Structure formats: C-alpha cells, structure tokens
C-alpha cells in the first residue's frame, strides 16, 4: 500500500493505492491521523484500492471518530467494488460520508 497527500481547494486529499490489510493498515491509520491534525477537511481517495480487510475498516473508523471529536469533515470517495463490498458486509455504508468523485467531495 502507498499513500500520497495533496491539497485541493482547501481539502486535504489522501490518495491510497494497493492493498489495505493487517500489515498495511497501521501505516494508513498513522498517515490519516497525522493529516487530520493539519486540516478541517480530509478526504480519502480509494479508487486505486484493490483490497481492504476489517483492519483497514477499523483504521478508517478510528479516523472518523477523531474527526467527529474535532468537528472535522472526513469523507471517502472513489470506492471500488472490493471496498464497497466490505463496507456493506460490515453494515458501515451509512456511517461514513461517501462520495463518488473528488469533485463531489469538493462541492457537496
């Protein structure tokens, strides 16, 4: 898994690529929590994530919790079928703010 962080119209975007599993989810968690400290609006681009497991979902939930505590916005976008399937099976599709595209994130 790799991550790259950038800014678009005041929103911090973290582009994630590859597989998020037990080995890589701690790195994702660390990256997102560090990014969240520096912004009020954090979006995670999952369009190049081919696989995510429950440890990855747990990391995203932890960031969501931190965002809520800090009254910040945390959005997921570009969900692949693999990511969407895991969110559906864990009944979390309504817990996260989910958008289709980056443009939707910026203008919602």
């Amino acid at each position, binding site marked *: 898994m790799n991550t790259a962080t950038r800014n678009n119209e005041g929103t911090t975007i973290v582009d994630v690529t590859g*597989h998020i*599993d*037990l*080995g890589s989810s701690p790195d994702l968690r660390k990256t997102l929590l560090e990014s969240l400290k520096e912004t009020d609006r954090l979006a995670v681009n999952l369009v190049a994530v081919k*696989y995510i*497991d*429950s*440890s990855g*979902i*747990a990391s995203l*939930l932890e960031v*969501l919790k931190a965002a809520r505590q800090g009254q910040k916005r945390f959005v997921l976008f570009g969900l692949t*079928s*693999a990511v969407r*399937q*895991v969110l559906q*099976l*864990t*009944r*979390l599709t309504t*817990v996260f703010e989910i958008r289709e595209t980056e443009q939707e994130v910026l203008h919602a």
Partner: protein
Amino acid sequence: MDVQVKLRMPSQARFLAVVRAAVGELGSVYGWPEAECQGVILAVDEAVANIIKHAYHGNSEGAIEVTCLGAADRLEFTLLDQGDPPDPGRICSQPLDDHAHGGRGTHLIRMIMDEVCYERVPGGNRLRLIKNLPAVGCTEKERSDA
C-alpha cells in the same frame, strides 16, 4: 479431479498477500464469479489475520497451514495453528455498529462462508471454512439457465 493447495507460512502479515493471490488464482482457474471470489479471498484473509492477531498475539514465529480443497461445486479451507484457542466471545456472532471493538473479521467470515467450524485439536486449533458454489466452472449461459 479435486485440487488441493497447501500453504505453510509464518505468522506474519506480509504473507497475507500470498494467501490472497493463491485463492484468487484458484478462483480464476475454476471460473468463480468475481463477487464470490472477492468474498472468499476476504474470508480466508480475515481468518489468517485472526490467527496472527489472536492465536499468536503478533508473534511472528508461529506457523500457519492453509489447505484449500477445491471441487467444482464446493471449496473447503482448513487452517491449522499452534497458538492460543480462540475466545468464544469473539467467534460468536455479535451485533456490529460503528462503536464495536473488533469482531468485524469474524462477522465477515460468517457472512461469506456457508460453514464455519472452530475446533481445538491436539497441539493447536483447526478452523474449517466451507463455501458451496453452485454451477462453478460452467458458462454464464449455463449459469443463467440453471
């Protein structure tokens, strides 16, 4: 002819990708539907990850053996480890919400697989996962006609 694939790996998360690739390739050979294949890969990955986390508590020196017995209509995975037995409270179904601490991996396994059986065996633990796959290996048309 049924196919048996066996992997023996250390209890290290970096080998999860190998397990996923092996299951995925087997799915390609058998022609499993994409969604079914993704689900089975996820279930087996979660099961191995649970062994690393909960049976071996992150100790990278443990051994995990994953055996996959594939047939046209049924897949059976057997996972063996020599770690601590699973916590009955964790492997039983529990309600999930966004505040739940853990248990999602086990929930996913039960949602995806048709049979899930945890057993204590001499020297360790055995987990059997079974997935019934109707009309595996046939064409899309045969599948829709079935």
